Each structure stands twice: as C-alpha cells, then as structure tokens.
C-alpha cells in the first residue's frame, strides 16, 4: 500500500511540477470559468429574487466547462511525445496511473474553484462564508475528475478530442452536477437540507472510484 501511494504521489508530483512550469491547465480553466461568470452576470442581470435560482447553475456550468478544458489538456500532455508509454512502462498497475492523473486533475480543479469562488461571491452578492459549499465542491470535483480522467484518456486517442470529451463525459457526469446545483442552491438560500444531496454524491464518487480504474486499463492499452 505504501509503494502504491508512493507511485501515485510521484505521478501527482510530476503533474504539479509540469503545471508550475507551463500553467497551461490552471490558466485556461481559470480564464474560461471567469468569462462564464462575468458573461452570465451581464446577460442575466441578477436581482435578489432571481439570483438564488440562477447562481448555482452558473457556478457549476463555469466549473464543469472549464474543467473539460483542463481534462483535455491533462491527457494531451501525455499523448504528445508518447509520454503515456513512459508511464505505462513502469512496473505498476494501470490503476496507479489512473489515480495519479485523477488526483492531479482534482487538485487543479480545486485550485481554480478556490480562486473563482470569491469572484463569484462578489459578482452575485453572496457571502464568502458558506462552509456548506465545501463538501459539495469537494465531492462534485472528485466526481468530475474521476469520470473525466477516464474519458479524457479515451478522447485523446480520437481525431477530434476537444469535441469528443464533452460528448462522452457530460451524459455520465450530469447526475453529479444536478446534485451539486441543487445542493448549492440550498446552501445559498441558507437551507440546511443541502445535506440530503451529500450521500448521493458520496455514492456516485464511490461507484466511479471503483469502476473508472478498471475501465482505464482497457482505454490506455491498444
């Protein structure tokens, strides 16, 4: 188990090091998510009556669509130059590669969410102190990263990978996003009933954390 975690963390270390040099993923996702939030703010002109209905959807659309850009980039980096073969030559299971890549995607998306949320709170006039959003954000981002890692590995082998990833990925991850939007709306409205969505997100994550590594090995081997 210690060796397993060590190798997973080695892949994560490599991805973090690459990202600190190129900043490809965080910058592209951050800019895209910011644009979505700003454009929706101008397009909808939120009022106190409508904002609690609209804002959670805007927030998760920004994270999800931005996340797709990051997921695409994450595996393109491995595909270009055939680096994925270098990873695959290590004497470890394919699931180790999956968890290493998934943790990197999760971490980068969480960083973007941490940066985006204050902007979102200011633009839509919400309090920054909404601790209820933390478990929702963590569980939903985990869902997006888990499912997205498998599909980005799949899409990277196709000719139009930028188009293929959302086409494959969105239908699968939609239940988690719906739960995240509903739970976030409850938190924003100050309603404690958001907790009823958390078990759903936990089960969603648990299922895909088991299924995705298995699928992943078939996806990356030709």
């Amino acid at each position, binding site marked *: 188990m210690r060796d397993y975690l060590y190798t997973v963390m080695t892949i994560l270390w*490599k991805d973090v090091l690459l990202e600190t040099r190129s900043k490809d993923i965080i910058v592209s996702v951050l800019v895209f998510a910011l644009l979505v939030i700003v454009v929706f703010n101008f397009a909808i002109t939120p009022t106190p009556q409508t904002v609690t209905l609209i804002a959670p959807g805007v927030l998760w659309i920004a994270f999800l669509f931005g996340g797709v850009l990051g997921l695409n980039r994450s595996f393109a980096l491995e595909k270009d130059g055939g680096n994925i073969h270098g990873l695959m030559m290590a*004497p470890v299971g394919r699931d180790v590669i999956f968890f290493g890549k998934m943790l990197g995607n999760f971490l980068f998306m969480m960083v973007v969410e941490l940066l985006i949320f204050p902007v979102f709170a200011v633009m839509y006039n919400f309090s920054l102190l909404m601790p209820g959003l933390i478990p929702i954000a963590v569980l939903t981002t985990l869902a997006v990263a888990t499912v997205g890692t498998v599909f980005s590995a799949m899409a990277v082998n196709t000719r139009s990978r930028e188009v293929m990833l959302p086409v494959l990925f969105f239908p699968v991850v939609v239940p988690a996003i719906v739960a995240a939007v509903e739970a976030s709306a409850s938190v924003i409205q100050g309603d404690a009933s958001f907790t009823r969505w958390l078990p759903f997100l936990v089960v969603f994550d648990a299922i895909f954390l088991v299924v995705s590594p298995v699928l992943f090995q078939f996806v990356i081997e030709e």
Partner: protein
Amino acid sequence: MKKNDAKGLAIEVKGLRKAYGRTQVLRGMDLEVPWGQVLTILGPNGSGKTTLIKTLATLIRPDEGSVWVAGTDVRKRGNRARGFIGLVTHDPLLYDELTGYENLKFYARMFRLDSVEQRIETVTARMGMTDRLHQRAGTLSHGMKKRFSIARALLHDPLVLIMDEPESGLDQDALGLLENVIRDKSDPYRTVLMTTHNLERGIALSDRMAIISRGVISYEGKADSALAGEIRQRYSDLAGLSAGDGS
C-alpha cells in the same frame, strides 16, 4: 531485478497475432531469444516490427498467442515483466517542461529505485549527457533527447533491452555510445532485441538477425558479415513482398 528472478528464455513468443481493425499486423509470430543474446530485427515499413516491440513491452494487448519476457507472461503479470524491460521507442518519452534530471528522477521514482542520484549520474555519463542534465528537455535537439531516452531505459539496469530503431537521430559520437550499450557484456544475461533498417550495423552489433515480413519471422540466422549478402538478398525479396501490409 536480476537473472535469478527470471526463468526460461529471455524472450519467448508463440503464435502471436495482432490486428488493428481488419488489418492483420502480426500473423502467428514465433520468436525465441536466449539470455545474453543480441537479436536485430529487420523488416520493411509496415511489416510489424513496432507492433512486436509494443507487445513485448506490454503497451498493447495481443489478440492471440503467448508472450513471455524474462520468464514472465506479459499478459498475466505485466507489472512484473515491465520491471525487467528497458524500452527505447521512436518517441523520447520525455516531458519537455522538465529538465533531463527531473525526467530521469521521475522515472526512477516510478520504478521505485534506490540510489537515484548515483544511477542518474551513471547513465547520463554513459550517454555523454552530464553537462545537459539540468537543461529542459524541450530545448534539446532530437539526438540529445534520444540520448536521454536511452539513459532512461538503462536507469533500472534492465535485463531485457528492447529498442525500436535506436540509432535514428543519433550523431556518430552517440552511435558509438549506443554500440557500447548494446555490446556491454558486463551482465552476461543482458539481452537486447532491437529493430533497425541498417543491415551492416545490425550485423556488426548482433549475435543473430531476423527478418519480419507479413507479420511473421521469415528469416532467422546468425549475424555474420559473411552472410550479409544472403541476408540482404532475403531482405530485398521479402521487402518487395510485404510493402504496405500493416502498420
């Protein structure tokens, strides 16, 4: 991992078949490479050399047949088999944003090696790359990347070295270093399987030569300069037969 961890032949392939869609690339290939030998595989473009290399290296799954590397079934125990294999491919398998040192350190960690600094120092010195160790891989020439790629493959001191056209992009100096790596007999069990289009170099470096054509081994024999004419003639005949057959 050392020889006492491994059993049988260094490489043993039986009835290997692989197709991409409807295109049959490997059509029931058989191949045996004893420990300590250098085998060079010749073959025209599309004859299945790279597919064979990728299958041996566990990068692709065969459709049929058995593949054993260092006495390990690569289909059932791929993790263990990969510990025995050092792979050099057409691609350098280096991250452009990382330095040569960081790339090698990453792969050393993936193999959970000890004495990492010493190993990196040894393999880079062997490939004449010590002074480029802290340069970003993206700024290196193709030949320099190839040198690092060979250094990466040697990092865990593999028993079986599998190289797909390793000489491509190398200058004369680096070719000499590559030849030293291939001819190195310090480990009598070190086995090398390489592909090339250079018949003379193949004969000079190898114990045996094989020619792949139409997805099977069509010729196999001792690598002897006296046989160069025969091998060349066979290669020419087979190359004519199999052009455009597969990947």
